[in-house]
């Protein structure tokens, strides 16, 4: 399969291009996605190449999402963009009360194979209404599937999997990743199915479960921890619903230690789900599990203030030291 040198945004664009090419029933629409090619340029060129299946919409999230639900019930496969995950909250009903119910209530006579592309998280200077990490809100809803790609390859693969998936799927990207350096991205391979975590760094001393852009800070910290003799295994959950528990449990069984890191607020975040699932599994840990997320605060706009709220590599390193820095490693017999 061909390799291409692409940015994360380019990888997502390639996935959209392939979907529009191979699946004539796909539609791509949202605010500024067609003529402008997206406020982040992710959908550039797609209108030109695919014509009237790509179009711009009014600033009407309920109409965007609701029409996607309706179109998907009639054989279309809409890929709609909600520019920021924060904005999904003006029309959350269409996702939770509408899209998620279509297949179940009709007992499979109808389905809603739609993909909601959005992006979230803090970026320098972003205000509190443009900085939230809201995956926990989507992940609690039966009927939805939720992906959070954080690598170039996943920006392509997870989006493709979501579009091919026959139920409503939310793909949460991260704008701080869009225009970084280019990387080799495998294109044209078989379309992957949904689900499945990825071990980004194998390790023996502590399992770090993370997802989204923050994992790059986690990998930095893991590397620095390695220099201190702490060998962390870093798992990128990638799919927030369903969660790949076997991979998580298998790792924790080996390391006996668990750290969960996400950019979202700790309280009520998906980290709680991961820690709870591990606790329920009965795996005996050598140390209490630890969640590292944002403390109770809104996200301030000034970068140095946001940095004081959001977890960073230094916090992760500190947590790794506290959790696994005692030299005693491995699970309790």
């Amino acid at each position, binding site marked *: 399969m061909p390799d291409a040198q692409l940015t994360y945004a380019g990888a997502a664009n390639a996935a959209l291009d392939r979907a529009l090419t191979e699946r004539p029933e796909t539609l791509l629409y949202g605010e500024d996605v067609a003529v402008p090619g997206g406020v982040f340029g992710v959908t550039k060129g797609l209108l030109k190449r695919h014509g009237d299946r790509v179009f711009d919409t009014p600033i009407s999230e*309920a109409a965007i999402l*609701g029409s996607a*639900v*309706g*179109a998907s019930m009639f054989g279309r496969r809409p890929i709609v963009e909600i520019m920021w995950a924060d904005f999904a909250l003006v029309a959350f009903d269409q996702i939770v009360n509408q899209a998620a119910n279509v297949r179940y*209530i009709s*007992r499979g006579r109808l389905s809603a194979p739609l993909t909601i592309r959005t992006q979230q998280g803090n970026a320098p200077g972003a205000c509190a209404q443009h900085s939230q990490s809201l995956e926990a809100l989507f992940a609690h809803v039966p009927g939805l599937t939720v992906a959070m790609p954080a690598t170039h390859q996943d920006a392509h693969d997870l989006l493709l999997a979501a579009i091919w*998936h026959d139920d409503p799927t939310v793909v949460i990207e991260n704008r701080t990743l869009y225009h970084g350096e280019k990387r080799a991205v495998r294109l044209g391979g078989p379309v992957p199915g949904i689900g499945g975590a990825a071990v980004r760094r194998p390790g023996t001393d502590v399992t770090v479960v993370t997802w989204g852009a923050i994992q790059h800070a986690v990998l930095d910290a893991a590397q620095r921890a390695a220099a201190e003799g702490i060998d962390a295994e870093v798992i990128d959950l990638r799919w927030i619903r369903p969660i790949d528990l076997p991979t998580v449990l298998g790792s924790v069984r080996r390391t006996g230690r668990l750290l969960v890191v996400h950019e979202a607020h700790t309280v009520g975040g998906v980290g709680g789900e991961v820690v709870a699932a591990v606790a329920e599994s009965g795996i005996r840990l050598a140390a209490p599990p630890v969640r590292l997320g944002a403390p109770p605060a809104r996200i301030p706009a000034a970068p140095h203030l946001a940095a004081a709220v959001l977890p960073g590599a230094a916090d992760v390193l500190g947590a790794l030291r506290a959790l696994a820095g005692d030299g005693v490693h491995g699970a309790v017999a």
Partner: protein
Amino acid sequence: MKSTTELADHLRVMHRIRFTEEAITALRAAGDVVGSVHLCNGQEAVYAGAVAALDLSVDAVFPTYRGHGWALACGVAPRAVLAELLGRAGGISGGRGGSAYFTAPDHGMFGENSIVGAGAPIACGAALAAAYDGSGRVALAAFGEGAMNQGAVHEALNLAAARSLPVLFLVENNGYSELTPTDTMVRNDQLFRRAAGYGMPGARVDGNDPVAVADAVGRAAERARAGRGPVLLEAMTQRIVGHYIGDAQQYRPAGELDAALAAEPIRRAEEALRAGGVAEAELDALRAAVRAEIDTAVAEALAEPLADPTTVLEHLYA
């Protein structure tokens, strides 16, 4: 003559709706049906007329929780509606939807919706699909006049207008938002006038006259099918029952209900047919025939087994 047979056909549908809901009322009183049930008694002409003007082999209807009448007008068997409310295996949604959220896609009825206004953008999606599948589909979004104040309806009206989508927005104006007179919740209660702001035609229609409704919906559907965009129709009607079964309706001014009963569509249709020379015996026969049909449907629905509870985790995902 045509108008007589047309009206008689509408009357048959209206009887079917009325008798089915009378049966539901009895089943609810007996405790066989539980939970809140929204009847459409008094509004039957809207459904009979609108559906008669559509081509359900392609068109799609998106009603609300007050959807029994829509389903029956669309041709869903009374037994299947009753079985749904009774949680029977043969219910149109296998007991998943209940009174307020069942769906009958095989009959062009693409789901009640229990979130006020939420069906309007979904209907836009059905119309949007038509632009690509060449079906010539027209989507009809039905909702109450109170739903006109819901944000999702506004966004749907604008999207449909902006993209000239083949959507008919049909307001069932029965005067009330649950227990509140809707004219106290707007400054301009001629809701159809909002259409102009979106650049689409809007009109009021006598919602107690199935022929008038069929005529207006038919012309709007033709226009939409021709690619000329959406229309907002405001059908003036009334409930002759409560918002839900058990609603004591203390909020209705004295005399209002009597006036509504005098104007209700079944009575009006029968009077018109009498005036048109139809014999009382014929009207009695029609009534009796439909009543018998519904009695049978009730018996059949009650005889069905309950939906199998071991299947409740199915169909969440493909």
